[in-house]
């Protein structure tokens, strides 16, 4: 990693044939494979696997948010609702109804999308700060609804989301073993990343970027801007709900804080830190933030202060996020 950063220094000195840039082109072309390789070796580089799983799950949460924020240009302050709905749906189904994980997870995604559709229909016509406020308000409604729901466990959160063993097509994984649990989550994340890659390369992927670049022009070109935004909102929620469901299984529980507005704020931070509108940036953001948090909290109670300082440093010196700025330097013409 460090060697590429050094090689990248000032963009002007790099020719088009520079190896770093060529490598980057190759990686961009095979972004699913590259993501696969990096995330496959990732837990071996982390101090402990549970942290790697957290990073993977929050990375996925940020990936979903990034589809709306980075690619469609809409800042939502209510994405905790989708993480939470996904987590509670999967959690309640598994803990209280004995639903199998392979059914609970897709149902959690569907639930996230349905809630997003309802929220989106109300919010999508507002813009900018109003959109952020409406999504925030609606996600607070979701918070209180779930809080009041007897099945959710209220303040104490949901307990007993136990999936200790999964078997599929003869392959058995012991989820009490952190390394095996990592690869269980990893499999879902990779499917999600493959789907995302397809979406970004699709005609719809072009449409959302057009909406982000210039709404009035996109409309004049014949795109139904509101519908495009709504679909992006729903798809984005689907990814976040998947992250929520995986987190419920990972923690064997769902803390009520999942739905808290701080969780909505955190994902904005992850995206900004990693690089909004980049494919891999959300994982970089999640890794950075959670690593800093983990390190700082080990030696001081006031770790949030240090996380804040580091965040400000990165926002000032990496305006496009760590990954986004790196990409821009390596690949001057985008």
């Amino acid at each position, binding site marked *: 990693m460090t060697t590429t950063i050094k090689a990248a220094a000032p963009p002007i000195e790099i020719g088009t044939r520079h190896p770093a840039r060529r490598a980057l082109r190759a990686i961009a072309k095979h972004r699913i494979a590259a993501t696969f390789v990096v995330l496959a070796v990732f837990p071996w580089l982390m101090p402990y696997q549970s942290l790697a799983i957290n990073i993977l799950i929050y990375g996925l949460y940020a990936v979903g948010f990034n589809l709306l924020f980075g690619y469609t240009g809409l800042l939502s302050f209510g994405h905790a609702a989708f993480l939470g709905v996904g987590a509670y749906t999967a959690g309640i189904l598994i803990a209280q109804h004995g639903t199998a994980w392979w059914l609970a997870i897709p149902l959690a995604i569907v639930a996230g999308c349905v809630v997003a559709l309802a929220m989106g229909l109300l919010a999508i016509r507002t813009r900018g700060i109003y959109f952020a406020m409406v999504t925030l308000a609606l996600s607070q409604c979701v918070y209180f609804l779930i809080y009041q729901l007897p099945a959710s466990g209220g303040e104490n959160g949901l307990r007993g989301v136990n999936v200790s063993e999964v078997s599929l097509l003869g392959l058995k994984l012991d989820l009490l073993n952190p390394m095996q649990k990592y690869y269980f989550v990893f499999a879902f994340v990779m499917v999600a990343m493959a789907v995302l890659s*397809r*979406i970004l*390369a*699709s*005609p*719809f*992927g*072009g*449409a959302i*970027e*057009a909406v982000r*670049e*210039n709404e*009035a*022009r*996109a*409309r*004049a*070109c*014949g*795109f*139904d*801007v509101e*519908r*495009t935004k709504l*679909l992006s909102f729903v798809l984005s929620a689907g990814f976040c709900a998947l992250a929520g469901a995986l987190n419920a299984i990972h923690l064997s529980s769902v803390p009520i804080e999942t739905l808290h507005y701080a969780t909505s704020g955190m994902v904005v931070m992850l995206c900004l830190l990693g690089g909004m509108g980049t494919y891999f940036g959300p994982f970089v953001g999640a890794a950075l933030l959670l690593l800093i948090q983990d390190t700082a909290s080990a030696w001081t109670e006031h770790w949030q202060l240090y996380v804040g300082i580091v965040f400000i440093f990165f926002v000032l010196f990496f305006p496009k996020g760590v990954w986004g700025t790196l990409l821009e330097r390596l690949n001057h013409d*985008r």
Partner: protein
Amino acid sequence: MTADPVIETRGVGMRFQGFTALKDVNVRIQPGILTSIIGPNGAGKSTFFNILSGALRPSDGRVLFQGNDITGTSPHQFAHIGIAKSFQITNLFPNFTALENVRIGLQAHVSRYGLWRRRALLQGLTEEAMALLDTVGLADCAQRPARELAHGQQRALEIAVALAARPRLLLMDEPTAGMSPEETRVMMDLIRKLVGERTVVLVEHKMKMVMSISERLVVLHHGELIAEGTPDDIRGNEMVRRVYLGQGQH
């Protein structure tokens, strides 16, 4: 006068919170020619343009396109029925290349919600986009981001994006605004080239330019239609002369 109009307004009026911007405007735009809408500042030209292009819904009256009532049709539908516009202020996708700007315009008519196909594989879009860039003289700039183009080039690209809708009616809001004389000349040649295959309506402000390229003129003043006819008719029109003398020449 005899041909069926491409677009027609019947009794169109527009009020903004008590202020009347347009009153009972009846205009028939003939096909295949260039018509310009002129008038002094505050005459209601922009409001009228926005009604024709679907950005505003008139408070009164109806708009007919090829005989069909299109009053209240949602703005994004206009590109699909065959009406495209270029904006007064350059309005592009700044971080897309010139080619991508035109290509996304073409794509809007092929696939808008497709989630699985690769848009790079959509048949013929790149070729068609290149052909349009060539029409407006931007073939050499295809790979450059729109934000890096010169002002005149951005205006030309704007027209290429509008043409990507394959419009039967092309509406242009002050296409030469802010241009140097040289750029204006190039743009006027381009506009002349575009008329014939399609109907073109300009909103303009520069009288001299309008007189030289338009076949018909529509003159608005204080939100009302005061004259309509060939440039010669308009030049001889007493009312128009009075309105413009009061304002000074633009």
